[in-house]
């Protein structure tokens, strides 16, 4: 409350004292509301008593940014009353989780309040917000960014992190502080300005403080981590690497072991017009880094371990997504993009696009620290692990090929095949369940009826003997650019081992877009899921009903 008042005062005073600039003041913002109206659905087992009076879920926010010369300030109001299905019930609440003011010049930038920051790839520190997932770990504190000379950026941050609606109180959770420096050598070293080899180096240190009042363990109150990174460009090659190290950090996420943590992320890419290739390698060992060692679940992360496999966007290819395993994983990813040129036999009149992607993630190898200690035993060093060894235990494998082809001015087609291995026992916390081995194939055809009207059809199939068995999906979407869309879709779980669960998940959606305003309505069903990751188990209930999304930016 007091914060808000200050904020208001700041704005008023800035408009008063800076009369000359009043005309240069700018304001922009955005609003969004996602509403769901539920109804009972016998086939999905949704009864009136299950809905239990919670017939409506509403997630909404309003975001305002104010800029006056070098000064800017912003705020976001959020209301989850009640959160829509699939969101963490701890989201329920309303208020201003994001309030900030900043002053930025060429040499210095200062932010107070809530902010989002990332050091390098985020292996040590990344605060971000993802509305669709209900995730927000913003820092509430101060940030100073210095750019003393061209090519040098130094950042310092400190604060406490957002944890749903729980206020920060003394000792209630940890405090985070960090520094980062980045040097663009081509701009800082004399004689390198025009070099064709470009090198950027960076280093960071992050530390968290949390009091130790635990009666069982002797816990470190200050836990710090360090990272170094390099980005080297030479002609058509681009090499990027980042290594991070963290001292002992026993927590609920690693079952209170005292081992140090490490992670390495490396990529090498080559590209020229019409051709691109990238190889990425990753190793993660005990790198969960949260600003509260005691909490379970998906919150209060200081760092971000990126999953490096392809993020799929068709419904069935995205059915089994990979999530990073901060306690240990070793992965590689390879992607190739090639455009068969126009005018060749395979390229045709418009050229043909080919994308090939492979990724695999295995567990790391863990060895017991001594004969009497089990691997991962709480209150011990936990285990030792050879940095270059990968275990036989495969978490995830994805091989996929996609071909894009414009046939003529009226027709376009995409075909994709995906071969998937998904260790559901580890990735969804369903121990004992057999890993999912699936083939997925799809085609996406666009028919341009007139210059503004078109019809798009998707046909997808997922074949597997595990989990919920085979799925088929069809979708037809009619669009009138740039304002209207209508879509009909059905996902049919025809291969579910339980005959009663062979459901159709149909949806009908329509939407209207005017400039930066979008209104969309979806009527239909969503399937249920049980997820047991991050040390907690949560059920996402099936739902049925109407979803409304209104979004606007100004």
């Amino acid at each position, binding site marked *: 409350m007091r914060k808000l008042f200050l904020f208001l005062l700041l704005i008023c005073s800035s408009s008063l004292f800076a009369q000359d600039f009043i005309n240069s003041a700018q304001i922009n913002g955005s609003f969004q509301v996602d509403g769901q109206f539920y109804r009972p659905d016998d086939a999905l087992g949704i009864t009136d008593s299950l809905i239990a009076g919670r017939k409506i879920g509403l997630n909404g926010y309003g975001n305002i940014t104010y800029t006056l010369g070098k000064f800017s300030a912003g705020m976001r109001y959020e209301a989850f009353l009640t959160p829509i299905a699939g969101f*963490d*019930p*701890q989201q*329920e609440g309303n208020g201003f989780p994001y309030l900030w003011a900043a002053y930025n010049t060429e040499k210095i930038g200062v932010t107070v309040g809530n902010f989002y920051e990332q050091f390098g790839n985020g292996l040590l520190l990344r605060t971000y917000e993802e509305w669709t997932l209900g995730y927000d770990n913003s820092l509430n504190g101060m940030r100073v960014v210095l750019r*003393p*000379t061209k090519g*040098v950026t*130094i950042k*310092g941050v400190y604060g406490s992190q957002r*944890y*749903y*609606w*729980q206020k*920060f*109180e003394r000792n*209630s959770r940890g405090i985070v*502080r960090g*520094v980062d*420096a980045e040097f663009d050598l081509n701009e800082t070293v004399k004689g390198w300005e025009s070099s064709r080899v470009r090198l950027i180096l960076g*280093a960071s*240190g992050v*530390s968290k*403080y949390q009091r130790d*009042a*635990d*009666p*069982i*363990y*002797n816990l*470190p109150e*200050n*836990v*710090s981590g*360090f990272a170094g990174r390099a980005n080297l460009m030479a002609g058509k090659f681009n090499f990027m690497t980042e290594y991070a190290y963290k*001292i*002992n950090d026993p*927590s*609920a996420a690693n*079952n*209170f072991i*005292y081992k140090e943590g490490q992670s390495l992320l490396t990529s090498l890419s080559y590209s020229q017009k019409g051709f691109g290739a990238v190889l990425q390698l990753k190793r993660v060992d005990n790198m969960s880094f949260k600003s*509260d060692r*005691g*909490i*379970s*679940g998906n919150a209060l992360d200081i760092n971000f371990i990126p999953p490096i496999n392809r993020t799929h966007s068709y419904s069935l290819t995205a059915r089994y997504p990979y999530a990073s395993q901060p306690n240990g994983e070793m992965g590689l990813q390879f992607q190739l993009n090639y455009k068969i040129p126009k005018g060749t036999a395979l390229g045709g009149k418009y050229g043909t696009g080919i994308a090939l992607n492979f990724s695999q993630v295995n567990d790391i190898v863990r060895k017991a620290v001594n004969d009497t200690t*089990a*691997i991962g035993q*709480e*209150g011990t060093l936990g285990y030792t692990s050879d940095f270059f060894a990968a275990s036989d235990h495969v978490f995830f494998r994805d091989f996929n090929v996609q071909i894009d082809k414009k046939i003529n001015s009226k027709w376009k087609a995409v075909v994709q095949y995906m071969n998937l291995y998904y260790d559901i026992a580890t990735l969804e*916390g369903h*121990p*004992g*369940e057999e890993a999912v081995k699936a083939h997925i194939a799809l085609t996406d055809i666009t028919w341009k009826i007139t210059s503004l009207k078109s019809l798009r059809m998707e046909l997808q199939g997922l074949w597997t003997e595990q989990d919920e068995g085979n799925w088929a999906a069809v979708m037809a979407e009619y669009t009138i650019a740039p304002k209207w869309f209508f879509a009909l879709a059905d996902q049919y779980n025809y291969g579910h081992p339980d005959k009663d669960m062979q459901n159709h998940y149909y949806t009908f959606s329509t939407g209207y877009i005017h400039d930066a305003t979008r209104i969309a309505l979806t009527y239909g069903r969503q399937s249920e899921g049980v997820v*047991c990751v991050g*040390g*907690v*188990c*949560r*059920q996402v209930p099936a739902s049925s009903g109407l979803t409304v999304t209104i979004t606007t930016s100004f």
Partner: protein
Amino acid sequence: MKKTVFFIFALFISLFTIQSCDKIEPPYKENNTITPGETNKRKVLLEDYTGHTCVNCPPAGVKATELKEVYGDQLVIITVHAGYFATPVAAPFDTDFRTEAGNDWNSFFGIISNPKGMVSRLSEGGSQLVDYGEWGTRIGNLIDEDELANIAIETTYTESSRSLQIKTSTKFLQEMQGSYNIQLCLTEDSIVAPQRNNTATVGPVPTIENYVHRHVLRQGINGSWGEPVVSGNNAIVPGQLYEHNFSITLNSDFNANHCSVVAFVYSTADYGVLQVEEKHISE
């Protein structure tokens, strides 16, 4: 200029390094034993919300047991089976450990994911729910406080009729504002039944066949929300004994040798538990 920048940064980093590293050397576990039996200290209630199909719950059970070893009688544990993961499903998970009181608390306090706990139902930063990694810290914060109320439980158990008579005597030790309820419940310790598990250091994955379920809530003796300690709208008189009597017949499924009565006094305003007491029924 450039050199200065590098120098400042190097200084900053090294200061940061030295100041902010706590490398812990073994032994990692503390040898903590609380001197037991100081009757004038507050007792703490730990509720462990769990379910037999919740694969991440066994480590929380381990934590509760460890804490009980540290705090002894000063810590009273109730394990509440409620919610989706406690729902009976296909054998061997077809036993129903849920109770009406447990279901009411589960939904009232908004517990959707498991494991979750509450420490004397006190809220911090606006939430009563505590993850098991924090239980020790929260309990440690309360354990040295002086008690504000005192509860004495007397039980008479007749084996032949399985009838259980309970008498509680509650005494407030100072002037208290607001109103307080007394809640009684029955717990059964050491029920052996299967439990799903995903932590190899606790037991076999994916199922521990002979898991020992500790301190399981079996029944709310006086409903889910208890009854007022002081009847009517009378003010609390410090030092006065407020007595309550209860009589129940023990369900034939319960093992009387493992049953205890737990009584706690809580504020009806914020549900915070002032004091808790536990007594084995046949002691």
